[in-house]
């Protein structure tokens, strides 16, 4: 699929995988709207992408805020055009240091669900209809193996990611035959701030670099027919398959 000339909205785009993916997409000629909560972090990434010749725009907003998401989606569509690719990359681990589920405050679980599930649901609710009407579009949920395997102390995050994946599968069956593709994309363990927050003692040498994972992600987007809508795609294994 030709990515050049399409438009993308990426949440959590000021650092880590989100920023790396925005960089790769902008380099591929995609008009990119980068969403993040902090203006200064966002400005830095947008300035870098533009200096490299990218068509990039920073949209400050909190995807977990019900009354901010219309502004986020509309601003993005106004500056990059109707959205062809929506990447739900923004996520929270829940409380850190990670803790046992029964030691997790109810409010912290609610916050994890708000950011990792309800936020993506709201944004997809706003964006997916236009994709369906136009007959094409891709929505990617960035997920984790914690959505599939249960690990001690990862409860709040794991529950929310499992729900996010099932949101993806549910949307996929409802949007069957509309041309809108929904993927759950597992990038594996990366050397990011989020990973350091979760596992401060991990050896960075054992982790993937976000830039490498972003390149794999973009190759995936360029060959959409390889994976059906609703698929769970393990990016580290996808290219070997």
């Amino acid at each position, binding site marked *: 699929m030709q990515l050049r000339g399409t438009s993308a909205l990426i949440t959590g785009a000021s650092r880590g995988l989100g920023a790396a993916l925005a960089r790769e997409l902008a380099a591929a000629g995609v008009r990119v709207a980068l969403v993040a909560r902090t203006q200064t972090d966002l400005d830095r990434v947008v300035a870098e992408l533009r200096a490299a010749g990218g068509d990039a725009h920073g949209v*400050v907003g909190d995807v977990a805020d019900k009354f901010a998401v*219309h*502004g986020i989606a509309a601003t993005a569509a106004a500056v990059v055009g109707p959205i062809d690719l929506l990447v739900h990359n923004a996520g929270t681990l829940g409380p850190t240091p990670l803790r046992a589920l029964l030691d997790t405050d109810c409010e912290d679980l609610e916050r994890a669900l708000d950011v990792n599930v309800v936020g993506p649901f709201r944004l997809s609710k706003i964006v997916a*209809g236009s994709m*369906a*009407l136009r007959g094409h579009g891709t929505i990617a949920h960035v997920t984790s193996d914690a959505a599939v395997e249960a690990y001690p102390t990862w409860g709040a995050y794991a529950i929310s990611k499992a729900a996010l994946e099932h949101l993806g599968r549910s949307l996929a069956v*409802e949007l069957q035959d509309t041309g809108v593709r929904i993927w759950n994309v597992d990038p594996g363990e990366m050397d990011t701030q989020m990973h350091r927050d979760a596992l401060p003692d991990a050896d960075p040498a054992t982790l993937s670099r976000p830039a490498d994972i972003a390149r794999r992600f973009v190759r995936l987007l360029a060959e959409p027919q390889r994976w059906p809508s609703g698929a769970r795609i393990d990016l580290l294994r996808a290219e070997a398959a």
Partner: protein
Amino acid sequence: MEPARRPRGEPLDERVLHVDPARGTLTDLRVRELPDTLRAGDVLVLNDAATIPASLRVRTSAGETIELRLAGAIDDRRWSAVLFDAADWRTKTEDRAAPPTVREGETLFVGPDLHARVTSVSSVSPRLISIAFSCEGVDLWRGIYRHGRPIQYAYAARPFELWDVQNRFASRPWSVEPPSASHALTLPLIAAMRARGVIVATVTHAAGLSSTGDAVLDAALPLPERYDLPEDTVRAVVAAHARGSRIVAGGTTVVRALEGCAHSNGGALVAGVGTTELHIARGFRPTVIDGVFTGVHEPSTSHYDLLEAFAPADLIAQATRHAEATRYMIHEFGDAMLVLG
């Protein structure tokens, strides 16, 4: 007629009065039955403009707080706008006092991050102005979404959120009032139409203000409106005309965009962005559109007048009497009329 004062529960149960000008008949339907009124090969064109929170509280240089309603974008920074007094939507538009007069060059303050300079005051009405915002792009949109509220009117039961007024397939923020004909069209309903062989196409049309309460200004409505017609839609319409299929407009804005485009281009549809000043009423001969799916409109509105271009005036009048007698509801969350033969 009774207005729907808020979004209602089940969109597919909302009512549709099918006015068939070919047979001269009126039929009561529900939205869920809409696919049955269309044939394989028909093209339904929908307006995918998202609705902007276009009502802004602004402070004038003299320190008075008034309401400014965006009417339409002129370019990336400049907009046309209409001024209202210090009251809000809870007061009937026609009961609102004249706002203070503003001067060219004056600054209107929206918030600490956004202000606008008055670049011209219309000769039609001193309430109709052009403004240039202090920023553009993402900064301007953020300011509008931070400070604006959806435009609404006195029949509303409560303040509306954008969640209340957005069509399910809206994309770019172009409309200042909801292109509300499609408010009840769910994605499964659209999929059911496509499964019948109906071609569903799009246009983006900047639906403007429907009422200002100023008789002179209201007579000038609708103001010039922008549209963006995709190449795919042009192709679908041309092919449908060639095979004798019908073109159905999902809302009066779609009629205005497509007929306006053809009117400006010697009868041909041309893909791309344009502006239309076309007023469509009795006697207008549509060259693109065969039928309209729209709200239920009251006589002496521009929307009602437009319907008379698609069916004899006495049939539209008869349909309106029937809608009133059988309690069809009006306005943006109201029931619908399908004029299609």
